[in-house]
């Protein structure tokens, strides 16, 4: 995990990503990475980035993809993306949004799929010690929230995320 050194390093990182363009999106981005990776996610989603919004004890980077799906990345005071949410007419690229957590996300979904009495296509719940995912909705209206419990800022109730 990269540490957030200073405002300058964030600016440099952002600049480097912007120069690199869409073809060279770093593999590492999204959940668990630093706020600097938000720009990589925006580029990958060909989206619009809104100015960060501050919540109590965290800030939010909001990306609106070309297809209208909104992805929010929640950044802790130490500069780490500890949660990602999505809402809109299409599923987002979770590989991008979940970053290094995507592999265990895939494994968890496959394990559930192998279970008798399956949960249907329209909801997904993953509760593992290192990753929690709630996803649901119906066609044309998808929503979800993923977070890494170990990265949550202290005293933050996950249900309070906006």
């Amino acid at each position: 995990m990269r540490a957030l050194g200073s405002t300058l390093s964030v600016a440099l990182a952002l600049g480097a990503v912007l120069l690199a363009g869409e073809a060279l999106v770093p593999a590492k981005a999204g959940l668990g990475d630093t706020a600097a990776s938000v720009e990589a996610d925006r580029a990958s989603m060909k989206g619009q980035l809104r100015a960060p919004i501050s919540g109590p004890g965290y800030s939010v980077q909001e990306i609106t993809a070309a297809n209208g799906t909104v992805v929010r990345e929640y950044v802790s005071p130490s500069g780490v993306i500890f949660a990602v949410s999505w809402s809109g007419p299409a599923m987002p690229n979770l590989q991008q949004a979940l970053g290094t957590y995507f592999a265990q996300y895939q494994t968890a979904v496959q394990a559930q799929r192998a279970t008798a009495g399956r949960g249907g296509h329209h909801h997904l719940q993953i509760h593992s010690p290192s990753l929690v995912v709630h996803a649901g909705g119906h066609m044309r209206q998808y929503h979800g929230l993923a977070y890494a419990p170990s990265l949550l800022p202290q005293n933050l109730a996950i249900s309070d995320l906006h």
Partner: protein
Amino acid sequence: MRKLVLLGLVQGLFLLAGCGGGSSGLVSAPSNNGSGSGGQGANAVTMKVDSGPDPTMGYDVDTPFITVTVCAPGSTTNCQQIDHVEVDTGSYGFRIISSVLNTSVASALQQEVGTGGNPIVECTGFADGFSWGPIKVADVEIAGESASNVPIQVIGDPSFENEIPANCSGEGNKEDTVALFGANAILGVGPFADDCGNGCATTPANGWYYTCPANGMSTTSCAGVAQSEIDQVTDPVTDFQTDNNGVIVQLPSTSEGAASATGTLIFGIGTASNNMKGSETVYTASQSYGDVSATYTTQGGQQLVLPYSYFDTGSNAYYFADGSIPSFTGCSSYPGYDTKKPQSWFCPGSELKLSAMVTGQNAAQTTVDFSVGNAYTLFNSSATGTVFNDLGASSGPPPTDCVAQTTTDTACAFDFGFPFFLGRNVFIAFAGANTAWGPGPYFAY
């Protein structure tokens, strides 16, 4: 291979000649209703709830199925009956798993193509993954109803498996087999005619529709493409010549854990003697999402405002947020619980009698009473059961946002899943269609 433009034209003419876009309203069609023996009219098909097409690979519960006939466009002989087609009021359009189709029909379905002749292929998003496959044109028959030149999706077609774009595979797990899907095909009869809508018609980077290299085995990339609504995957019911303004899902009351149940899917609302609205109340749905509003008070006493609520046969339980009812690790003491993959089923110590208030956009309001039992106990007490009234599952912790009356958080939703439909007639009127009881989109029950 026909060009996309021609396809659109043919469909346009068909709509004009056939049904005027669903405005036939109350025109009564007694001829639809009298095939005599068998109990089902021409506009009604038997709906069966059972363990699914392949119970050894995945045992379905609370999932309704019908049989659909798919034909090559224009043919009445090159056809195939497909059983175990899931009826899903939470999606729009018809999708078949590629491996189910016989060679004769599969090779005769017409590929939709974009500018330059390249095939149109779709990435269909689900909450737990995606399906990838080409858009083909087929004739579709259900009971005595038929629709010509319907754009459908053939999921998992080997010709395109090498070409899945990163933005599609990034949506999660690929669902392209009967075992993963739990069905041979899925018929989406929710309140919209097509699967993506205007967004996909205007934005090439829509995440759904792509044009892909024609040779099918190329690894060069597919490109996002704007797809007009008429060429998007379309609910065949909206393309029926008659009875095309909505559907009615009829399911009987059943004993808890019944081995199977038999109901009826009826086409049309107010178009025949078997699809008139009786005492059911109309709840109009939002134009944007086809949703109604609900309020639910958790067992902890917190009232949630849920403006993005819906009725979904494709969800096999009531899915809602209530942190006061045990689920996940809270169910670890029950046989069947798997520590490696905790599930979202609710497992209250005793059956809970609950209620939610549903409000339509038209301010029509009613209280829905329902029960949630312990899913593990229910499954354990009925090893061969496929029909459960009392299945509930957690949709996550209730967002604090949902306390506000004006929330815009789409996670503020109550999913009235399959158990809601048991013992009810649920009318679903399509957006853009007229009925004797007003225009869609609406639900009535």
